[in-house]
């Protein structure tokens, strides 16, 4: 951008005067100049720096996703299979799971429950174990004579003096120290070297068929009585039903399905019977 060196133009003294004074001249800019420049730059950059959460189209998708997630969660809560029904239908599985949970708890407790386990082991060795499929006994159901005896024996065995093996109380020789309260200690050879939790046998008592039939009959009669008592007019409203479901969940029971087939059929049957009974005298 400079002038030709070979053909330098004639410089006027006016040019020299102004060039000399104004070439390096400075003027203090406005104090708000930088702010204005910044504001102008941000204004220019705004459309290009639009992040995805500032995009209004994303809001729609996010709202749709939230609504669908809520619907899915609600549907799952209302339509999920009832846990209580499952345990009623398959008590063996429930008993097995409860036994496993008990095992896990006993493992956690460690050697403090060792005495009880040994007692259980002795009991299982004494008592014959039936080979029938395992059925869990509800706490409220009265057991036949034989299981009652077994429970009593189990209680007695549990109350017996225990043999505590304290790892801290071992002698330097490696001999196990005895608890002074225990009258007859178990010999060292009788204590298994393996973890005791693995050797515990699970004792389950088979329920007699007669008892099962009797209970089923009692349950059926109870349900029939309930349906007789419930008035059709006093059918619970939606809100009340939801509250009942919440109360059931809080108590640990499963959610009762809205279209429970048994209940609906029974109530319908009862209603038809009732209607017939009410209509007959009128016709007569």
């Amino acid at each position: 951008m400079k002038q030709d060196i070979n053909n330098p133009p004639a410089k006027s003294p006016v040019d020299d005067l102004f060039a000399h004074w104004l070439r390096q001249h400075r003027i203090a800019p406005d104090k708000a100049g930088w702010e204005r420049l910044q504001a102008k730059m941000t204004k220019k950059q705004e459309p290009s720096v639009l992040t995805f959460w500032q995009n209004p189209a994303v809001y729609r998708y996010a709202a749709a996703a939230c609504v669908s997630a809520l619907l899915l969660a609600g549907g799952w809560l209302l339509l999920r299979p009832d846990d209580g029904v499952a345990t009623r239908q398959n008590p063996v599985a429930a008993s097995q799971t409860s036994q496993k949970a008990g095992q896990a708890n006993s493992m956690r407790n460690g050697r403090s429950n060792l005495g009880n386990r040994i007692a259980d082991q002795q009991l299982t060795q004494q008592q014959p174990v039936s080979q029938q499929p395992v059925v869990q006994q509800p706490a409220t159901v009265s057991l036949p004579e034989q299981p009652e005896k077994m429970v009593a024996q189990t209680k007695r065995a549990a109350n017996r003096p225990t043999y505590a093996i304290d790892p801290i109380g071992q002698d330097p020789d490696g001999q196990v120290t005895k608890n002074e309260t225990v009258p007859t200690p178990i010999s060292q050879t009788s204590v298994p070297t393996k973890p005791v939790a693995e050797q515990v046998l699970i004792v389950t008592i088979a329920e007699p068929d007669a008892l099962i039939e009797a209970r089923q009959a009692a349950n059926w009669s109870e349900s029939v009585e309930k349906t007789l008592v419930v008035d059709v007019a006093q059918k619970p409203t939606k809100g009340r039903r939801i509250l009942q479901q919440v109360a059931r969940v809080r108590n640990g029971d499963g959610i009762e399905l809205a279209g429970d087939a048994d209940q609906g059929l029974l109530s319908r049957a009862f209603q038809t019977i009732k209607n017939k009974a009410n209509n007959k005298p009128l016709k007569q």
Partner: protein
Amino acid sequence: MLRLLPFYTTETQLISGLKRGESRAQKVAYERFAGKMLAVCHRYCANRDDAEEVLIDGFMKVYEKISQFREDGSFEGWIRRIMVTESLMFLRRNKAWRQEIPLDEAVTEPDYVWADANLNETELLKLINRLPDGYRTVFNLYAIEGYSHAEISQTLGISEGTSKSQLSRARMLLQSSLKKLEVNQDETRYQQPTSQIAR
């Protein structure tokens, strides 16, 4: 926790910061060159507000085009060229800058030694700003920026002859203004003792 702020002591550091798009480097560049560049813009734009506007646009262009700057030349010279181009664009957008003033009377040469001793930058800038836009632009490009007539004609889209004539007219106007200032100064110098006696 202390936060270290870069000072950009060297021009290379500043240019690197600008190329990285650092806001602090941009501010430092503005603070360092805004004064000089505003003077450049004000030589082309007679109005101070217009000059400030052109300065802001010019700095925005500097930040945008910094990647195009090859570090073999002067950084200040590069910014100055951007400012000149911005000023010319502004004049072209806003005004018909090709104006001609008829000069009938012959102008006598002013005393340049007196002018150099008695006038400052502000007064000289005022004289330039009184020129018509076309004259002022050609005079600035030729006399101060050092452009040739060929470059001026290419930049402004005029012929070289027009550029030369506009330059000579600008010179004559400036000479006449300087002569007037000189005469006024002499008159005030001679009038001062009389006024003092009258008091």
